[in-house]
């Protein structure tokens, strides 16, 4: 579990602040995404891949669209799942500090369960 915690912490540290701004705070650059209009800036992979002038940075000539899309979807799963793992692992130890050390087993099940659920939900939502 510590591996998930540290990898998640790395991903969250480097990438989460930007995605928080993009997903929830800045105005939307594109109107459509995954049928989730309420995400202030959600983006469509089609637009991202074909109409984005900076799409040349992606290895499109070398990989099929499906592969790039796959990588980007896995990226989102890692971002959300990793953040959840990291934060909930820390929260578990905070709960220990506040006296819940004896309930370690139960907390493991509940908190890591939520973290796995976050990864699972993101995966199911993005993959067919």
């Amino acid at each position, binding site marked *: 579990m510590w591996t998930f915690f540290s990898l998640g912490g790395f991903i969250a*540290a480097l990438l989460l602040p930007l995605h*928080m*701004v993009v997903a929830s705070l800045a105005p939307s650059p594109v109107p459509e995404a*995954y049928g989730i209009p309420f995400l202030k800036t959600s983006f469509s992979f089609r637009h991202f891949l074909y109409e984005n002038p900076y799409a040349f940075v992606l290895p499109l000539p070398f990989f099929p669209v499906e592969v790039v899309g796959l990588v980007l979807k896995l990226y989102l799963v890692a971002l959300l*799942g990793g*953040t959840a793992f990291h934060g909930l692992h820390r929260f578990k130890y905070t709960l220990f500090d506040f006296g819940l050390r004896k309930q370690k087993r139960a907390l493991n099940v509940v908190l890591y369960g939520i973290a796995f659920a976050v990864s699972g939900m993101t995966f199911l939502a993005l993959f067919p």
Partner: protein
Amino acid sequence: MATKTVYHRYRPHQSPLWFLSNRRYFAFMLRELAGLFIAVYAILIAVGLFAGRFHPVLPGPNGSIDVYASMAWLLKTRGFFVFTLISLAFACYHSLTWFDLFPQVTPIQIRGWKVPNRWVFGGMVALWIGLSLALYVVLYGGKLL
């Protein structure tokens, strides 16, 4: 037969508010709290993505609850906007404290020379800002706000 006299020891107990006694302890607690805020944010977004795809319906006290509609409403509220701002501040605090801790966990060596922790910190902050800017440019197609 000799008997051993056992005296009572005084066992001190740590106050549950121990983290208030010291600036560094408090900064530590803030760091842990940052983890919780970003986890909650990730949970909300994941639920939103899932609800948008599968439109689940839960039984509620006054009829059924459309999770997607509830999430759509929630993520447009001013409260969520404020929560995101606070979480963003915590996310940045997480990033900075992480870059500070990382070189202590994994000392970076280049051919026997240990890179000073301060340099690793600076390098990671630069990487963070650089990556964020690059991603922003890619996502917005070069258009800035």
